[in-house]
């Protein structure tokens, strides 16, 4: 897609050559973006990662098997038992449809790739696309050079990589591409003011809506920008063309997606756009009048028009407010609210708070995820402000808002990453412009510069190349990117300079008076900075983000040790239990259980029904008998717990247990968090509270654990467990994996005979009251 603008840009042979070069670099960037994400496949295996991707994978399988209509109407009875879940109406189909289409095309070409393979490689492919989109966007903002820089930065930015390594088959993988591309088209429309791009813009917005709840970010950001432009008096009819059709089309198309449906007009995430829609019309009208009237008449006109316009606005606002008031939760879904008010989630919605990626990020995580870009961004902002165009102002706005959001939710670092890349791309290219240009002016001869500029690059790149050698073979095709990127860019620079000097304003000149040494040193420093960034990214790709959380490895003195317990347990369930058996576990494992073990689960990672989850949480934190009664009333046959105590796997159910208590207690007040804490702290050793020691979760986790080493030392909590020897009366162990990481228990049948003291073990449906009641399926857009 990049070719036409590139080649159209230049008419002269030289620019054509530059265009081809740029095209080539872009292609290489794509390859880089794709290949750097294959560490996971090479180091581990071609497998779906983590939790949500398994659901997406399962949905994709269903789609490829039964076709689009079946998928649209899919009522899944294997999850959220007994409520079931309408998959077609509650899932963002973009990702699934994309992968499904790719698979279909491949198979119609008789290339028998499995659905799994396609799913695994969807994310890398789209990250390449995202890099290209970044190029286009930045190019619209600031010339080709900036575009290329931004593209390569994004191709390897860790925070995006963390979500799009091969196998992490999640919405964000495609959504980020859609996001950037939508922004690109918006800017494009803004610059050209052609309806054609406006339509494309709407369509790509539609794709974004299909693929991620984050689309609300777009539909709020763009109006903000429009408003900004109007306020800054930069209104132009191009702005109108860019915005008005987008709103209409966008709303219509968004309403077509089952998940969004009428929310596109009902919920207040979207109202901002309508408001601005009205405002822009007023403004447009005003300017139109001004256009056809003589100034003095306009003076008169303006008063009337304004009064009318204001009246309209007021009316509109009134309507909107009314609508907001009428719509549920004031029209804002939980996660969006927790965006505006960071403390909201922790206060009201423990489920959202319980997910680690909804926590506010820490500073190290910033450094981890965007590394040196964090320092380049301010420079970029400055660069954007001289001279300020609509496009650059938009980018700045984008950056600012995304910084705020990322501050609220760690997960939204993802949205920040592109902005940061664009900014620092601009900054870097500007810097190179200035420096190389000054170098060039200093040296009278034009021919000498490229070489020594070139060899400084080469030196630096070789430096990093042998740094990089330690990592595995993936990198060496990277290093040559690193080699050629700066050199090529510098070559591009000095040809851009030609039009820059023509195009750009005078102040550029003043900047250029830098001594030769200073500038060359500066160039060197920048290159070093970039190389640091590259090394960090490669490390992140290879070590930090490539592990698929279902199979764990640990390096001990006797080589690599693999912990494949999860799949062991799931495949046991798959082959040795009845097809209709229900498996209860904490919701983290719901998606994996349905996908890998193909068994019905009670709750899963799509946490749409708080009560249901609370029921399971209650069961897990109750003593055996009530727990048995709850599970029995849900027809549960097996209970699955994850236990890391033997091998020291930290994220096991005991560590998540407090959330179960909180969520359970949130709905069923007889579960009180303090009962599980010994003077405020959470412990499972001898000091633990009896409530804790009698809770089902404790018992199922530590059943017969003491017999392994005689004293029951928990390697995660680094203590001996409190209650060591106990029997299970209502559950029996049916399977425990090799490293005890997953333990599966079976509910015993009710007692055959009643002893004197027995009460009726009929389910007292108290803890369940209202599980079915609240049908407020929270279709939270940020899932």
């Amino acid at each position, binding site marked *: 897609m990049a070719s036409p603008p590139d080649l159209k840009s230049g008419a002269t042979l030289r620019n054509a050559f530059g265009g081809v070069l740029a095209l080539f670099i872009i292609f290489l960037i794509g390859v880089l973006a794709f290949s750097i994400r294959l560490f996971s496949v090479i180091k581990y295996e071609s497998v779906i990662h983590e939790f949500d991707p398994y659901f997406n994978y399962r949905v994709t399988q269903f789609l490829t098997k039964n076709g689009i209509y079946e998928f649209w109407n899919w009522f899944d009875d294997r999850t959220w038992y007994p409520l079931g879940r309408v998959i077609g109406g509650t899932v963002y189909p973009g990702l699934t449809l994309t992968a499904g289409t790719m698979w279909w095309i491949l198979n119609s070409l008789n290339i028998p790739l499995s659905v799994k393979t396609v799913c695994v490689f969807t994310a890398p492919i789209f990250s390449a696309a995202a890099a290209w989109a970044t190029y286009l966007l930045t190019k619209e903002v600031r010339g080709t050079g900036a575009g290329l820089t931004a593209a390569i930065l994004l191709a390897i930015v860790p925070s995006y990589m963390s979500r799009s390594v091969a196998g992490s088959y999640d919405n964000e993988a495609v959504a980020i591409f859609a996001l950037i591309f939508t922004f690109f088209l918006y800017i494009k429309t803004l610059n050209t*003011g*052609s*309806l054609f791009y406006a339509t494309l813009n709407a*369509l790509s917005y539609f794709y974004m809506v299909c693929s991620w709840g984050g689309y609300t970010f777009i539909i709020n950001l763009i109006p903000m920008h429009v408003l900004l432009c109007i306020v800054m008096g930069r209104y132009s*009819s191009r702005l109108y063309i860019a915005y008005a059709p987008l709103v209409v089309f966008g709303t*219509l*198309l968004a309403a077509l997606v089952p998940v969004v449906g*009428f929310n596109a007009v009902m919920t207040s995430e979207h109202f901002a756009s309508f408001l601005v829609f009205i405002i822009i019309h007023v403004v447009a009208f005003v300017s139109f009048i001004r256009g056809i009237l003589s100034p003095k008449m306009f003076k008169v006109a303006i008063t009337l028009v304004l009064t009318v316009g204001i009246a309209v606005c007021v009316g509109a606002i009134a309507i909107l407010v009314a609508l907001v008031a009428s719509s549920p939760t004031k029209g804002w879904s939980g996660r969006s609210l927790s965006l505006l008010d960071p403390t909201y989630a922790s206060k009201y919605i423990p489920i959202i708070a319980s997910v680690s990626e909804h926590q506010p990020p820490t500073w190290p995580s910033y450094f981890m995820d965007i590394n040196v870009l964090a320092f380049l961004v301010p420079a970029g902002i400055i660069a954007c402000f001289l001279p300020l165009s609509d496009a650059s102002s938009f980018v700045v706005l984008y950056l600012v808002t995304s910084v705020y959001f990322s501050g609220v939710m760690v997960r939204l670092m993802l949205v920040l990453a592109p902005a940061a890349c664009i900014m620092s791309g601009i900054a870097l290219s500007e810097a190179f412009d200035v420096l190389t240009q000054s170098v060039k002016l200093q040296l009278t001869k034009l021919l000498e510069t490229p070489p020594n500029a070139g060899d400084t690059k080469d030196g630096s790149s070789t430096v990093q190349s042998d740094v990089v050698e330690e990592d595995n073979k993936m990198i060496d095709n990277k290093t040559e990117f690193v080699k050629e990127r700066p050199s090529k860019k510098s070559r591009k620079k000095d040809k851009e300079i030609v039009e820059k000097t023509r195009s750009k304003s005078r102040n550029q000149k003043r900047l250029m008076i830098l001594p030769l040494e200073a500038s060359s040193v500066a160039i060197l420093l920048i290159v070093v900075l970039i190389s640091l960034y590259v090394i960090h990214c490669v490390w992140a790709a290879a070590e930090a983000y490539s592990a698929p959380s279902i199979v764990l490895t640990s390096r001990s003195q006797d080589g690599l040790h693999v912990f494949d317990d999860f799949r062991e347990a799931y495949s046991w369930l798959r082959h040795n239990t009845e097809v209709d058996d229900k498996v209860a576990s904490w919701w983290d494992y719901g998606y994996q259980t349905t996908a890998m073990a193909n068994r019905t689960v009670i709750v899963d990672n799509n946490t749409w029904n708080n009560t249901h989850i609370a029921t399971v949480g209650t069961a897990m934190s109750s003593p055996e008998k009530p727990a048995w009664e709850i599970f029995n009333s849900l027809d549960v046959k097996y209970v699955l717990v994850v236990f890391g105590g033997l091998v020291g796997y930290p994220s096991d159910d005991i560590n998540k247990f407090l959330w179960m208590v909180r969520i359970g207690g949130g709905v069923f007040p007889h579960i009180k968090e303090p009962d599980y804490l010994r003077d405020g702290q959470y412990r499972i050793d001898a000091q633990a509270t009896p409530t804790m020691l009698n809770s089902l979760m404790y018992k199922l986790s530590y059943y017969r654990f003491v017999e392994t080493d005689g004293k029951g030392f928990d390697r995660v909590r680094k203590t001996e467990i409190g209650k060591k020897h106990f029997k299970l009366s209502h559950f029996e162990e049916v399977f425990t994996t090799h490293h005890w990481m997953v333990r599966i228990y079976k509910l015993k049948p009710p007692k055959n005979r009643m002893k004197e003291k027995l009460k009726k073990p009929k389910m007292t449906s108290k803890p369940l009251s209202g599980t079915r009641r609240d049908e407020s399926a929270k279709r939270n857009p940020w899932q």
Partner: protein
Amino acid sequence: MAKSSSTDAVTLIRSLRSAYAATPTNLKIIDLYVVFAIATALIQVVYMGIVGSFPFNSFLSGLLSCVGTAVLAVCLRIQVNKENKEFKDLAPERAFADFVLCNLVLHLVIMNFLG
């Protein structure tokens, strides 16, 4: 005061008309079209007020189709307007082609959403 404003209004209207008279016919046609679309939209809103928004999707599509048409028409008007400095390079044929394309897309979506 009121008087002066009214006279202002009168003069304003007059000058408006005169100014508008200058506009080329094709723009006039467009304006007519816009007016028609907006009128339909208003009618629907009123009807909705009376009957209630039961088939909400139909209402939306009906309304938005009108609004969309209007907006697109306005865009077209902006583009083909000779006075408009911004669109010198954009040929009116091209603009109209885009306009047609947009409308096709719009009505496609509308048809899809109506049922």
